[in-house]
Every structure is written in structure tokens, then in C-alpha cells.
């Protein structure tokens, strides 16, 4: 694959970091401060989008910054996998920023400057993870992401928020420590940490080493991917303001975890070696268990955000299970689900936030009849729920289709059934909310109306996009083609 030298990956990472200065300075003038966030988000997305045509041609954009350890450089490289993550995260940041403005003003949140500044740093780190050319660069940005999201989890500074922040750090820093171990071990085994499709481990690597390396990756990326039993930080982190839960814990942080798995399995260990070692079966089984267990637990949650959190836990394992199966279809399904799930879940979180601000409801049991007062919000909720259950024509169906096909490709009927069963459970815990909102009799909400346009417009956009991506999966921005490219390069037994 041809590599084009370009400054754009670096600019995409840096633009929001530079914006932090401009966000912090106009502390007393919120509109100026917020406009910097929006401008940074638009600039970031524009940069990433401008790189898409080149990547679609089969090339990658790269820039090597400087040596950060003898023999290893801080380097960025935008390939198909990276741009899938980069595009979805940067686009959704624009919408989340608009939503955030509506939310923090609606709730009169304190310390808004710290909030918006932290968000900007988080997105910088997310781009760094997406575009990292080697494992050390990825680890550096991965750790920065953990630290940058901490003030956002802690934001409300209530005792629950402080506890949530502590638990968050314990889990994620422990994962980070295992990641450093994994990084060092990879370097010792291969002599390099550059990502290469198909794996970089030497030809006759011992099976025990592969299993050890996999275990280290599991204990590190698995924490951010919320694989059970390392998932517990995610429901607890729901104490953060809803836009934080929406972007970070549905799109950026958790997707960084599954993205890490995709890089580790596809570009470090290599799917073939991974499959032969037997570790793949273990990961698949663990992911399948997580999918079902999380969905069942979600059914029993009354708090809306908790229910969405467990739903996320389940859906992240869809992606993990897909990357663990040795089938191109499974990989395509997994990578598409990174984007699809992000789009649908962020819709649900946006709705939860709008409901919280406008109707002051946090629990499902309080939502009777709300749909009649907030029809747009609940309609968006309905579209996203349908998609998460895997029902066409919303985009969730497409990724699920490929995942099921992938499971059948490798002869694992059990996993196919897992996906289908999970779809039923999703319908159970999500569509029931929709039914309750529209059809349950109640006169609790009168003359409520929709939340502020700053909140309703983003959730409507993401819902409509979920629908459009389901109807026209092969159109801009060609996620399907990007996913196929990755699957091909990774499964094809090597390549750039």
C-alpha cells in the first residue's frame, strides 16, 4: 500500500489541543468559549474527511514525528481502520458539542470551562489513538485519554461522582499498566511495534508467548471495551453528565478499547496466529457471555442511563466477538458496528439527556406517556432502538447481518444464536420504553414540549443518519468499503 506523507493526521490531532487555550481564556464569556469548541470540532472533522478520498484509493497518509524511544518513533498513519474510528468520533463530536451547550446551560452546570476544555483534550487523544502508526504512540494517547476523561466523570463533584471517578481510574489505570506490559512484551518478541496488517510476531513464535500477549491485551483493552468481568466501571461512570456518557462512553473511550482489540488482533498478533493459538476461542466465548449477560442485566435496570450503559457493554462485545472470529464477514460486521452502534447509542443518550433536562426524569418507570409530549425525541429513540435490536432498515441490521454471517462462516452456530438472542433482548429492554412512552396512559406530562433545539436537532440528525446508513450502506462515507479493505488486508495474510 502506498503511503503519502501528509501533515493532516498531525493537524487533526492537534487542532483541538490548540483550541484548549482558546477555550480556557474567555472563561467569563460562554458564547465565545463555546464557539471555539464548535470551530475546533468542525475543523477536525473537515481535516479527517479530507483524508478520506486518499484512503479510499487504497493509500494511507502518514507522518513520522520524532523518535520517542530508540528505534520507535511517535508516528501517525491514517489507514482504513483508523479513518473509520476517526471519522465517526470527529463527526459525533460536532453534534455532541451542540448538545453539550444545550445540556450544561439547561442544567446550569458548574465549571463549564473545565468541561469543554477536557472534552477538547479527549478528542485530541481519540484522534491520536485512531491514527497511531505503532503501539507505543497508541499507548501514549490511550493513557492521555484516561486522564483527560477523569475530570469529566468527576464533573458533578457529588460523593457519587467522586466515587465513580475513583472506580474509573482504578479500572482504567490498571488496564493501562497491563497495556504497558503488553507493549514491552511485543517489543521484546518482535523487535518492533509498528502496526502491520496480518501481524508482526515472528514466524515461529511460541504458543505460550501468544497466549501471554493476548492475556495482557485482554486485561488492558478489555477494560475499556467493558468485557465482563471488567465492565463494572461503565455503569458507575454514568454519574457523569449525559453528553459525557454519550460521546465518551458510547463513542470515544469504549470504542478506543475495541479499536485497540482490532489493532492488537489484526495488526500485532495477526488473526491467523491468534486463531491457531486457541486464544481466539476464549475471547469469543467471553464476548458471547458478555453480550447475553449484559442484555439480561439491562432488562432489570430502571435507571435509564444504567440500562443504556449495560446495553453498551453488550454491543461492545458484538465488536470484540467479530474480531475474534476468523472470517472476513465477521470483521466487516465488527468494524461497521463500531460506527453503527456509535450512531445509534449516541442517539439514545442524547434522548436520555433531553428527557433529563426537560422532564427531569431519570428512570424508565417515570416515562409513561412522555412520547406524546416529546414526540421527536421519542421517535428518535424508537429508530435507534429498532436499529440496536438489529431490525432493518436501521443500520444496526447491517452490521449484525455480517456478524451472524461471519459466525456461520466459521461454523459457530452458537455465536449466531447469541447475536439473534441478543437482538430479542435489545428489543425487550429498549422497545418497551418506546411503547411505554407512546402508549401508556398517563397525564403526568402536560404542556411539556421538546427540549431546546440545541439538544433536539443533534438527536434527530443521528437518528435520521442511522436510518439513512441502513438504507444506503454503500454511500458516503463508504464505511462498508473501508471495513472490507481492513478485513481483506488483515485476513489476507499480510500486507501494508
Amino acid at each position, binding site marked *: 500500500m502506498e503511503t503519502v506523507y501528509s501533515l493532516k493526521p498531525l493537524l487533526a490531532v492537534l487542532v483541538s489541543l490548540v483550541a484548549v487555550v482558546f477555550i480556557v481564556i474567555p472563561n467569563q464569556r460562554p458564547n465565545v468559549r463555546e464557539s471555539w469548541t464548535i470551530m475546533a470540532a468542525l475543523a477536525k472533522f473537515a481535516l479527517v474527511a479530507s483524508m478520506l478520498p486518499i484512503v479510499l484509493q487504497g493509500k494511507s497518509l502518514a507522518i513520522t514525528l*520524532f*523518535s*520517542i*524511544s*530508540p528505534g520507535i518513533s511517535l508516528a501517525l498513519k491514517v489507514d482504513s481502520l483508523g479513518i473509520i474510528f476517526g471519522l465517526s468520533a470527529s463527526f459525533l463530536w460536532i453534534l455532541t458539542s451542540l448538545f453539550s451547550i444545550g445540556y450544561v446551560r439547561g442544567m446550569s452546570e458548574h465549571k463549564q470551562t473545565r468541561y469543554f476544555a477536557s472534552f477538547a483534550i479527549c478528542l485530541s487523544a481519540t484522534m491520536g489513538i485512531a491514527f497511531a502508526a505503532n503501539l507505543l504512540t497508541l*499507548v*501514549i494517547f490511550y*493513557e*492521555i485519554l*484516561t*486522564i483527560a476523561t477523569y*475530570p469529566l466523570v*468527576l464533573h458533578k*463533584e457529588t460523593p457519587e461522582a*467522586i466515587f465513580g*471517578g*475513583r472506580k474509573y*481510574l482504578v479500572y482504567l*489505570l*490498571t488496564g*493501562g*499498566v*497491563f497495556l*504497558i*506490559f503488553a507493549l*514491552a*512484551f511485543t*517489543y*521484546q518478541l518482535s523487535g518492533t511495534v509498528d502496526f502491520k496488517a496480518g501481524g508482526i510476531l515472528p514466524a515461529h513464535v511460541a504458543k505460550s508467548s501468544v497466549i501471554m500477549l493476548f492475556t495482557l491485551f485482554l486485561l488492558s483493552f478489555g477494560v475499556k471495551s467493558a468485557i465482563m468481568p471488567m465492565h463494572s466501571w461503565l455503569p458507575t461512570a454514568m454519574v457523569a453528565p449525559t453528553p459525557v456518557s454519550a460521546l465518551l462512553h458510547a463513542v470515544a473511550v469504549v470504542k478506543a478499547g475495541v479499536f485497540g482489540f482490532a489493532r492488537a488482533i489484526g495488526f500485532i498478533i495477526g488473526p491467523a496466529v491468534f486463531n491457531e493459538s486457541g486464544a481466539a476461542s476464549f475471547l469469543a466465548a467471553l464476548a458471547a457471555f458478555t453480550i447475553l449477560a449484559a442484555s439480561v442485566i439491562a432488562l432489570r435496570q430502571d435507571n435509564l442511563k444504567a440500562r443504556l450503559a449495560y446495553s453498551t457493554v453488550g454491543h461492545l462485545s458484538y465488536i470484540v466477538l467479530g474480531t475474534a472470529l476468523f472470517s472476513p464477514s465477521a470483521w466487516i460486521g465488527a468494524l461497521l458496528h463500531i460506527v453503527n452502534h456509535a450512531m445509534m447509542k449516541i442517539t439514545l443518550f442524547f434522548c436520555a439527556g433531553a428527557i433529563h433536562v426537560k422532564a427531569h426524569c431519570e428512570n424508565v418507570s417515570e416515562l409513561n406517556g412522555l412520547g406524546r409530549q416529546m414526540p421527536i425525541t421519542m421517535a428518535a429513540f424508537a429508530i435507534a432502538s429498532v436499529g440496536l435490536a438489529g431490525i432493518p432498515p436501521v443500520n444496526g441490521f447491517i452490521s449484525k447481518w455480517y456478524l451472524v454471517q461471519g459466525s456461520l462462516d466459521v461454523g459457530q452456530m452458537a455465536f449466531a444464536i447469541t447475536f439473534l438472542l441478543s437482538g430479542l433482548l435489545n428489543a425487550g429492554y429498549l422497545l418497551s420504553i418506546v411503547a411505554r412512552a407512546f402508549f401508556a396512559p398517563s397525564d403526568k406530562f402536560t404542556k411539556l414540549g421538546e427540549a431546546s433545539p440545541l439538544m433536539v436537532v443533534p438527536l434527530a440528525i443521528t437518528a435520521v443518519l442511522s436510518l439513512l446508513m441502513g438504507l444506503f450502506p454503500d454511500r458516503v462515507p463508504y464505511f462498508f468499503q473501508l471495513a472490507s479493505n481492513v478485513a481483506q488486508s488483515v485476513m489476507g495474510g499480510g500486507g501494508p
Partner: protein
Amino acid sequence: MSSLSILILAPLLLFCFISALVGIWRLRWAYATAAIGMALALVAAGTGLFRVLSDGELRYFLGGWPPPFGIEYVLDHLSAFMALIIVFIGLIAVIYPPQAGLYHTPRRGIPAYGLILLLIAGLVGVVVTGDLFNLFVFLEIYSLASYALITLGGDKAVVASFRYLILGTIAGSFYLLGVGFIYFSTGTLNMADAAQRLPPLYGSPTIMAAVALIIVGMGIKMALFPLHVWLPDAHSYAPPVVAAILAAIQIEVAAYVIVRMMLTIFQPQYFIDILPVTTIIGWVSAAGIIFGSVMAIAQKDFKRMLAYSTVAQVAYIGLGIGLANPFGLIGALLHILNHAFMKSCLFLIAGGIRYQTGLHAISQFAGLGRKMPLMMGAFTVAALSMVGIPPMAGFFSKWYLVLGGIEANNWAFVAVILASSLLTAVYFFRMIEKLFTTPSTNDSAVEQATEPPARILVPILILAIGIIILGLINALIVSYVLNPIVALLP
């Protein structure tokens, strides 16, 4: 023959006397002359490192007397590296205002800045000298200066200093005895000369005893677990600037002596195979890392927490030495540099907090982040670096240590290094959480707090920015400065 090594020492010693004399007249001039002297030494040290990088070793014979009769001063990669660190931190310490750094402006007649220059001169002398006995002389010079400086911290500090004096003198005496044994066996005190005369004597019990004495003596000075007992009191009660210099540099200079013994005077094989020094240092350090970190978690006073943290951090250096492979030693040497910046920054911040609010207990710091954003921002950078979060410098020294541990197949050491990151995170994040969450009750001391003045803030910010820069350029430091040093290892 180049006099650069002496040119680092000369301004320090000269201005020590000038500063002491001038201080009797006007304190402000003592402060200024000290800064001038330190700046001159810094220029010399910087030049020294550049010359060594381009030309190689620089030697100087004191008085023109050639070795092995005369005293020789050597600037090689290791000594130039150490000298630059010592003098840079020394300069930062000297420009930090005495009201915050020494708790109050010293009385007329107490040559505080003269003593600080003497302390730095002694430390530099230890690293640039090429003579075993001359090293002892400088060791005692800096030790005596440090005992005197610690007492400026108050009554408890006097007791702590006395305890340090006893233990430090024992340490110095062990070192002297060890050097004496080497002299009796080889007939020379010059390091390079001894290096040539020692190999035939490697089996001799006298030499083994000498090495044991020197290592234990330096272990006491280095506060290597379990010989660290003097440190917590000495560093918590000493004034912030003194604690900063001691924790950031003096401890590391003691580690330097061990490294110099291992690499230059003896061949590394001796320390690894013939006498299991590195094995012992390694395991003792592993215990020290865990001990120091756990004890730091238990502390309620900020400076005491930093003192126990120093015990753990210096044990990282010991662990790197104990691994005895290139990555391990690179990690140890890089950590000398990184820890110097991180720990001095933290102690100066402690001084700043005490100066602005009078507070020193961690539980009282709630909500300070809002009141002193820049200083607490610097604290966050230093704390994250101590925990080992990239791209701060602390991450990279741990990275090399982990690589060294894996290469040595020592999984226990790797586990200790990684676990200690989490333990360090406990006591630092506990503080970060306190600083950045505004409490519901308004403590008047915190309420009235404001950002400290620029004179206090600037040295702290220089160190904090330095931590980030050192992290980003660590590959340069490793390639150009440290790799030649570790090339001596097998």
C-alpha cells in the same frame, strides 16, 4: 587536558564564600551572588556536556600534578550528565525565594545561600572527581552542608538532622574504610589506575570487603531500603528548597557512586557474577519500591508523603542498577534525571502552598485547584509524571525499566514496577481529587488563597514544562548521552 570540570566547581566554591560574606551585610546580595555563581557553573556544565558529546572524555590534573600522584578530575558522559542535572536543579533552587523556600528569610549571619552553594559544590565534586579519596572529601563537604541546612527547618528538623548526621557519618566512614582497603591492596587512589590494578585482585577477600563497605555506605546515603530510615524525618522537616535539593540530587549522587564503582572502577562482571551485588541491590530495591509506595499512601502530611515517595523512586534507580542490563541501566540513569525534575517541582510546590496558605496537611488542600490554577496545573503534570502517564518524563524511565526486566526474564521486577505505578496513582490522585473538587465547607485559608507570586511560580513552571519536554526528547538523551555509558555493560 581541559579545565572544564574545575570550571564547574570553581564558581560554586568562589561564590560560596562571596555569598556568605556579602550575606552578613545585605541578604539580598547573598541571594543574587549565589544565583550568579550557580548560573556560571551551569554554563560550564552545559559546555562540559557538549564538549564530552563531541570530543569524548575530558581530564584535568589538579595543580598540573599527573596521576597517580595528583588528583584528577574527569568529565565523561556519566559525570557530565550528572553535573548538568545537579547544577540546573541548584540554579532553580537558588532563584526560588527564601521566604517560601527556607520558611523565612535567614537571619543575618546565617550563610544559608553560601551553604547551598557549598552543598551543590560538594555534589558536583563527587561526580567529577577521578580520585577515590577526593570523592570522600567532597562527600563530607556536601554532607556537612546538608546537615546544617536541614536544621533551618525548625526544632524537629534539628533532631532529624542529627539523626541524619550520625547515619551519614557512619556511611561516609564505611566508604572511607572501603577506599582504605582498596588503597592497601592496590597502592593507588586514582580511579582509572585502580581499575587497571584491581582485576588480578578480584578473588581477594579484602577487595570483597571493600566493595561491601562502599556499597552499604552509599546505600545508606542513597536511602535504599532498609537503610532509608533517616530520610522521612530529614526531608519532611527540612525547608522546601533544601528538601528539593536533597531528594532530587543528593540521593541520586549516592546512586552515581555505585554506578561509577560498577562501571569504571570495577568491571561490571565483578558486580554481577563474582560478588552478587546487583542481585542484592535489585531485590532490596524491589522491596523498597513497594515499601515506599505503601508508606506514602499512609501519610497525611504532604512533605512526608513526598519523602516516602522518594524512598520508592530511588529504589527504581536501584532496581535499574540491579537489572544490570543496558535497558535497566538506561532506565535508572534516565530516572535520575526525571526524578530530579519531578521531586524538586513537587517540593517547591509544597513550599509555595505553605507560603500562600500556611497549610501542609493533605486533607486541608481541598479546592486549592480553583484558587491556584497554574501551580496546581504544574502539580498535576508532576504527579502524572510520577505515576507514569505519557508523554511526561516519568513514563519513559519506567518504560526502559520494564524493557530491562523483560530482557532479564525477571517477571517479578516487571510486576513490581507496574504495580508501583498503581500505588503511586493512589496517593497522587487522592491529592488531585482533593485539589480539584470544591468542598462544601469553606475553609478560610483556602478561601483567601491566590496564585503565588511570579518569583515562586516561575521556577515551578520551568520544572513542570521541563518534565514534559524531557519526556518528548527522551530518545535523544538516551541515544546521545546514556547509550555510551551503558556500552560498558556486557
